[in-house]
């Protein structure tokens, strides 16, 4: 099928985009990289009256490294992240996961803000943002506010975004020198959405301390597994007793099956992903 008809607007500044969104909020949809919205338009799942194209707003496409944080503009594309020395040096978790996000041609267009705003439960980026303890910086014509990634993803394709708000940027704290990370996803084909995946950060490796273990592709939203973190806390990444407890704790998670994979399979695969991510913790 082809996309339905819509009114197309291409503002050149964030303030112009915010004004357009403010004036047309009920009927307008923001177009970021379009790698999910365009298929939805073709399938007519999305039928907005207006598309507000953010692709010409240069101020949303910058990566700024501060002393404590890296601030990534919402329209920064995955390919831009992959090419960034700052991301390579400062954000090893994001860096190691990027090649697993879709395919090269998709990463050349897809944006970090678009992925956050869509909140696809199978997407890697929302889980990576939670595991990285990121903050989402939101703006509207009236105000700006900061929402932690922990609170931002509220449900199936649902976020804390309010009408009239646009994601301006995403701030990720620079990890400490002792921090370690793990990422693993199980897919049918490289680059496909994961059947189950996990992103892990810990402030130190031996013993594991202050972990964030976030599963994706297994529930209605990325799931931070607090019980799993507790089971692993103060152990080591190859402590089989602790890992067994951590996998056992997955039984308490509210998982959701999809058309290919039932809940029990998801739970099993989440455990496999966890084990492998822990083996590759670095």
């Amino acid at each position, binding site marked *: 099928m082809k*996309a339905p008809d819509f009114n*197309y607007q291409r503002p050149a500044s964030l303030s112009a985009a915010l004004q357009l969104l403010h004036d047309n909020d009920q009927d307008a949809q923001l177009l970021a990289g379009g790698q999910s919205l365009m298929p939805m338009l*073709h*399938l007519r799942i999305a039928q907005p009256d207006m598309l507000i194209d953010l692709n010409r707003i240069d101020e949303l496409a910058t990566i700024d490294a501060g002393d404590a944080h890296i601030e990534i503009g919402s329209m920064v594309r995955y*390919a831009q992240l992959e090419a960034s020395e700052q991301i390579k040096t400062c954000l090893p978790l994001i860096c190691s996961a990027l090649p697993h996000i*879709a395919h090269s041609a998709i990463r*050349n267009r897809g944006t970090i803000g678009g992925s956050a705003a869509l909140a696809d439960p199978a997407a890697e980026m929302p889980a990576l943002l939670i595991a990285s303890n990121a903050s989402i910086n939101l703006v509207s014509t009236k105000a700006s506010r900061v929402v932690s990634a922990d609170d931002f993803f509220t449900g199936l394709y649902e976020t804390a975004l309010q009408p009239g708000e646009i994601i301006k940027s995403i701030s990720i704290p620079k990890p400490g020198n002792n921090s370690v990370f793990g990422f693993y996803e199980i897919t049918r084909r490289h680059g496909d959405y994961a059947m189950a995946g996990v992103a892990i950060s810990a402030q130190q490796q031996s013993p594991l301390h202050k972990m964030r273990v976030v599963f994706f592709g297994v529930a209605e939203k990325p799931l931070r597994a607090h019980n799993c973190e507790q089971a692993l806390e103060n152990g080591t990444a190859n402590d089989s007793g602790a890992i067994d407890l951590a996998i056992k704790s997955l039984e308490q998670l509210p998982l959701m099956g999809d058309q290919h994979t039932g809940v029990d399979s998801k739970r099993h695969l989440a455990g496999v992903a966890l084990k492998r991510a822990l083996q590759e913790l670095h």
Partner: protein
Amino acid sequence: MNHAQQVDIELIVNHEKINCRVPVRVNLVDFLRNELGLTGSHVGCEQGVCGACTVEVDGTMVRGCLMLAAQADGSTVNTIEGFAESGRAGHLQQAFATHNALQCGFCTPGMLASALEYLEQGGVADRAAIRQHISGNYCRCTGYQAIVDAIEEVAGQTETTDGQ
């Protein structure tokens, strides 16, 4: 709402300057095929899954179905016709023919575009890396083996040339 909104776009396609008025809902690959007659880029799934519509926009390979033609305003676009005419994909095309890396040919323009990106980014003759790079392009005929053979051969030639 303004139905059937159209916009004027100006872009360079295969080194030729194009001025056109397009309905805003038309995607880039439909525009290239239906308005410009560049039917080398194929329309498969229209969901970004199959890769048959892969074209180059401002130096990067993208899904032609996941961009609006209106978004390409001011851009430089190259399609398989451009790659073939300029000789940029010459070695790859020859290797695809030699290795029987195509049967029905539907995926080939997109496959060549992805392979070209791999080689031009300095990709080496590593089968796993090649497979990873073309993982976003479906081929339903060949089983990929011959396609990987072809790309591997050209990557090997490039390495040898670089080494001399």
